[in-house]
């Protein structure tokens, strides 16, 4: 086994994974703290015959990757809060037209320009609700570079499987921190390739007519099937429709194809949950401090565990409810004002037992911050 070991930034781990997954088109615009992703891909993509383009803004960047995806490429863009805000309309277009793409948001302090160089996890709800209208979305995250790699490959796989944009919600700490990454060998990690239609040239191809298994085979733009793509509500031909049954069916399809598979889409890790009285729930870089607390307290005999979420949307409510069922307290550890805590409260049987350990001062949350909250919950005083 000759696995390559690298020592690199989280943003570079994301780049390695995207290339491993088959990324061959990237469009982006410089923004801290995501810029290294664009920088590395500017070098790496042309070396493998792929395409890199620096666009005039983030709106143009996401539009360019959607266009490229339609021609059959695996595509990605990377940005941070302000750029992610600009991308929201086109993100909805990708949802509506069911065009696979991966959008990385390396979160920084917000709102507005906020604190570009410091950490935050304030875009969790924006990832879910940022674009207008009822829809479903997949948003994934990770706390260390090996998982950044795995979850980035997963993002490409899910984008292809469900013909959907997938959002990677990383944060400044994971993005800029350097640590070890073991690069899998080619073929070691399963990759999902584009499902292309088997309809022959000259036979009608319906771009929005699902197969029996619910999947929608695609036909590359520029190929033998000419069809229409529109952000308007459309029928199976891709043509605008205001027919109520068509409207209803499309909206249901866009939501159900993901929300009905919430458990299937749930990626998470658990540490010492089997007998935990106190369950920490965390994700991204915050989960590193949470895990530290769990391991330290376990050594003292405390019954505490960690549920680390990697799928943030669709929110894995069933899993959260099950894992927290026997707990006396649930502490959500995150660097925002409780965005995941809200979802946890909706999921669990006893929302009154859900607490928040957070920081919103642009400083990385430490084990001590979490322990302070635990002491309050345990009635020990700070």
């Amino acid at each position, binding site marked *: 086994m000759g696995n390559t070991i690298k020592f690199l930034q989280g943003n570079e781990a994301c780049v390695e994974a995207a290339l491993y997954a088959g990324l061959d088109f990237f469009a982006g615009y410089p923004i801290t703290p995501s810029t290294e992703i664009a920088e590395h891909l500017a070098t790496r993509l042309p070396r493998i015959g792929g395409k890199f383009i620096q666009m005039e803004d983030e709106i143009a960047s996401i539009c360019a990757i959607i266009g490229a995806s339609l021609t059959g490429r695996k595509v990605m863009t990377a940005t941070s809060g302000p750029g992610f805000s600009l991308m929201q309309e086109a993100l909805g277009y990708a949802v509506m037209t069911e065009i696979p793409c991966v959008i990385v948001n390396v979160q920084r302090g917000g709102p507005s320009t906020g604190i570009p160089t410091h950490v935050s996890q304030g875009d969790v709800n924006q990832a879910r609700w940022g674009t207008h209208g009822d829809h479903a979305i997949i948003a994934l995250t990770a706390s260390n570079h090996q998982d950044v790699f795995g979850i980035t490959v997963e993002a490409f796989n899910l984008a292809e499987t469900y013909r959907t944009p997938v959002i990677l919600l990383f944060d400044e700490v994971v993005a800029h921190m350097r640590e070890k990454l073991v690069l899998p060998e080619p073929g070691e990690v399963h990759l999902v390739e584009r499902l292309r239609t088997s309809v022959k040239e000259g036979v009608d191809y319906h771009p929005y007519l699902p197969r029996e298994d619910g999947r929608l085979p695609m036909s590359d*733009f520029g190929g033998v099937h000419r069809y229409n793509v529109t952000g308007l509500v459309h029928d199976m031909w891709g043509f605008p429709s205001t027919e109520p049954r068509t409207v209803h069916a499309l909206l249901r399809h866009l939501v159900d194809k993901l929300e009905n598979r919430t458990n299937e889409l749930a990626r998470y890790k658990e540490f010492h949950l089997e007998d935990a009285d106190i369950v920490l729930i965390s994700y991204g870089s915050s989960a590193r401090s949470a895990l530290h607390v769990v391991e330290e307290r376990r050594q003292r005999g405390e019954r505490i565990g960690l549920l680390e979420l990697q799928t943030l949307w669709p929110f894995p409510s069933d899993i959260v409810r099950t894992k927290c069922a026997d707990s006396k307290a649930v502490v959500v550890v995150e660097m925002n004002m409780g965005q995941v805590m809200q979802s946890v409260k909706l999921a669990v049987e006893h929302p009154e037992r859900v607490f928040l350990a957070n920081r919103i001062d642009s400083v990385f949350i430490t084990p001590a911050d979490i322990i302070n909250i635990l002491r309050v919950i345990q009635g020990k005083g700070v």
Partner: protein
Amino acid sequence: MAVKDYLRERFFPHLWCPGCGHGGVLGGLVRAIENLGLTKNEIVMVSGIGCSSRITGYVDFHTMHTIHGRALAFATGVKLSRPELKLIVPMGDGDALAIGGNHFIHAARRNVDMTAIVMNNRIYGMTGGQFSPLSGTDISATTAPFRTIDRSFDVVELATAAGATFVARSTSYHAQQMTDVIEKAITHKGFSVVEVLTQCPTYFGRKNKIGDAPDMIKWFKDHTTTIGSKAKQEAPDLIERGIFVQKEGPEYCEEYQKIVDRAMGGRK
């Protein structure tokens, strides 16, 4: 191939108003493509939002009806990904130069090989007659009840300044010339812009008391002239028609391919 073979007849009738100039542009565009002998599979048409952008639905090419103002950005992605395809981007005046102005100048600057057709009726028709950045001053619109004070862009000057390597203007009256310049624009290697003055009798014409469609078309005949004509010297207010810019310049996708070749160092 007959002109109608380029159309998706089952999706007619179109949604444009009686007397609208956009149908004439559709006709000119399809005739240009027919004259060039292009196959339907090699053409990708990308549009934004507005009356003009609905043109993509009616043609039997690879068609993408996108979001307001961003058609050129989507088209750039398609073109860079598959440089062998012919990209045609029909846009309205608001779509191209208000919300899409930034993408317009940057597409011109990059000199990506695609053809932007600005169907300029000087009004937002789809939303019911608001002024656009091409309306010009002293125009009546629903959002300019006391007439416009906003100055207009000159599409030709803007495209030229931004670096477009082919820039032309025609009108819906000059159907033959329109077809001819669209043909040359599609053939041109690089970013080509064709501005076509078209009439919106429903909103622009009615609001500004120019008359109905025939009167508006006649206005194009009476108020335009060939580039550098004697008539222009005698009446400087006449709008010039024809090809203003036609020059060679490094095309973006070809330049990018050189980067790929260099980065791969001859490796495959």
